[in-house]
């Protein structure tokens, strides 16, 4: 369980994290989603005791991170897969972890095995690893202490689609065993795949917080015709409940074939027909991203 309350971080005049509150519950994978520079990494660094908040609090398993005993045994942390000593082998790096956490020797091989790194890969220098392999080794660092909580900053970065599928399985298993996972990403489709609960941050503020099903219903069709009012009547007549969007289209709880039949029965030409965006999260996220992009251009 991770509880973040009114967390604020200021650097001089700029507010990087602005009164952020959210929870990550045991048994769930929580995705922390936001464009680059939104304050995700800063929040995770405060959560893990590396940065001090200006105000507010963050607790893991009921305590601030810095007050956890042997934290590697309780919270697995991966903040930056590239921040690993290039001159050490993956196995040596894990052995240092095991020594510090007081783990038995076989835990090193178990951890390598769990993240899909072979014995030969474990013996190679981290400097020769691909980004995907570094992510796997970073996950091995996080998992080796058999923690109850995982905090992962952009863990899917550098993984190929098969790697992301593998990561989804690993995190789902971890959560199914009662573990709490908090992972960050700047890619909506990545979080959609990995997380069951979403917390969206933009410019340091939480702008959406809910389950994937609430925020991304997935079902539903968006339909548009030149005469929106007539289209509404046609959908009603076909027994398809719909809601009008602000720009005159309709979002209908039915598949595209049903909707097309209803429109053509009323003699209406459909100008747009596609799966609906879940409660506008994709549109929201796109607008956040483009806001940030514009900000960078003007800066």
């Amino acid at each position, binding site marked *: 369980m991770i509880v973040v309350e009114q967390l604020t971080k200021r650097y001089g005049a700029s507010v990087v994290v602005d009164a952020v509150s959210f929870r990550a519950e045991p048994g769930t994978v929580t995705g922390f989603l936001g464009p680059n520079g939104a304050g995700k990494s800063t929040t995770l*660094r405060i959560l*893990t*005791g*590396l*940065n*001090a908040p200006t105000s507010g609090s963050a607790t893991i398993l009921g305590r601030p*991170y*810095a007050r*956890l*005993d*042997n*934290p*590697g*045994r*309780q919270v697995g*942390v991966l*903040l*930056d897969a*590239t*921040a*690993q*000593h*290039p*001159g*050490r082998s993956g196995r*040596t790096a894990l*052995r*240092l*972890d095991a*020594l*510090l*956490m*007081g*783990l*038995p020797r*076989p*835990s090193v091989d*178990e951890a390598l095995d*769990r993240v899909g790194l072979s014995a030969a890969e474990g013996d190679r220098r981290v400097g020769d690893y691909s980004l995907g392999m570094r992510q796997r080794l970073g996950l091995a*660092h996080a998992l080796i*202490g*058999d923690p*109850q909580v995982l905090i992962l900053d952009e863990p899917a970065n550098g993984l190929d689609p098969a790697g992301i599928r593998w990561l989804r399985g690993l995190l789902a298993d971890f959560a199914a065993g009662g573990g709490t996972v908090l992972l960050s990403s700047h890619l909506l489709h990545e979080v959609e795949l990995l997380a069951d609960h979403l917390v969206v941050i933009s410019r340091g503020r939480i702008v959406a917080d809910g389950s994937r099903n609430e925020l991304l219903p997935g079902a539903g069709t968006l339909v548009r015709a030149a005469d929106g009012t007539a289209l509404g009547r046609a959908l009603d007549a076909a027994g398809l409940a719909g809601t009008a969007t602000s720009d005159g289209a309709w979002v209908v709880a039915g598949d595209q074939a049903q909707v097309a039949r209803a429109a053509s029965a009323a003699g209406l030409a459909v100008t747009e027909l596609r799966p609906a965006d879940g409660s506008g999260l994709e549109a929201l996220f796109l607008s956040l991203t483009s806001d940030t992009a514009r900000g960078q251009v003007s800066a």
Partner: protein
Amino acid sequence: MTTVTASRVTRVPLGRLVRVELSKTVASRSGEWLLTALGLALVAVVAVTLLVGDAADLTFRGFAEVTSAPLSLLLPLLAILSVTTEWSQRTALTTFTLEPDRARVVLAKLAAMVAVGLLALAAALTAAVIGNVLGTVLRDGSGTWGLRPSEVGDLVLTQVLAVVQGFAFGLLLLNTSAAIVLYYLVAPAVSTVLSLSDALRGTAAWLDLGSASTPLSAGSSTGQDWAQLATAATLWVLLPLGLGLIRLLRGDVKTD
């Protein structure tokens, strides 16, 4: 997976942190190279002294002087790197998440470096013993063993001070190049400048660690020498160590 009962998790003992830091020193190429270089240097200085030294100078004290010289050169570098590589390789992220009590991490690192320094000094004295024996056998050297316990104590203190000073500079600057420049160029330059003028020389004895620790190397310490050493060490060792520690404890861990 190894099963771990959460309720049994206890604080990481300091001794284990020290062992981890010792392992890190060996498990890095710079550390391996430095320790190898140190071993080779010990062999080299003993060999050269055997070849070219005056037979009368081939004593245990003479050998101890030459074998401790490479230590003073290389150990501070090892101490600097033990701190600064955590930032240059950004492993500080892992180090401080696995042990959030940063003061304990610093203490463990410092203890590990002092331990390495003492082991290296033991190796240097062993090399001096071997050199002295060989000098007697091969060169008919004088081969005396006179080295008073206080002189050994001074040797230990000198090496430990050098290690802690290097460590302190590393902690103050958190940057390898800057710490090396400060330790190997700026500090000796200040020393030289202080010794240039007669007016400054009296003050220099109190402010310059090099001249303050000379009586140590010469084995002729008096009460005033100790007082001068204490003030100079405060300025050059304790002050940077304290400032570096305060910054680390108060600030955010920044690695980029």
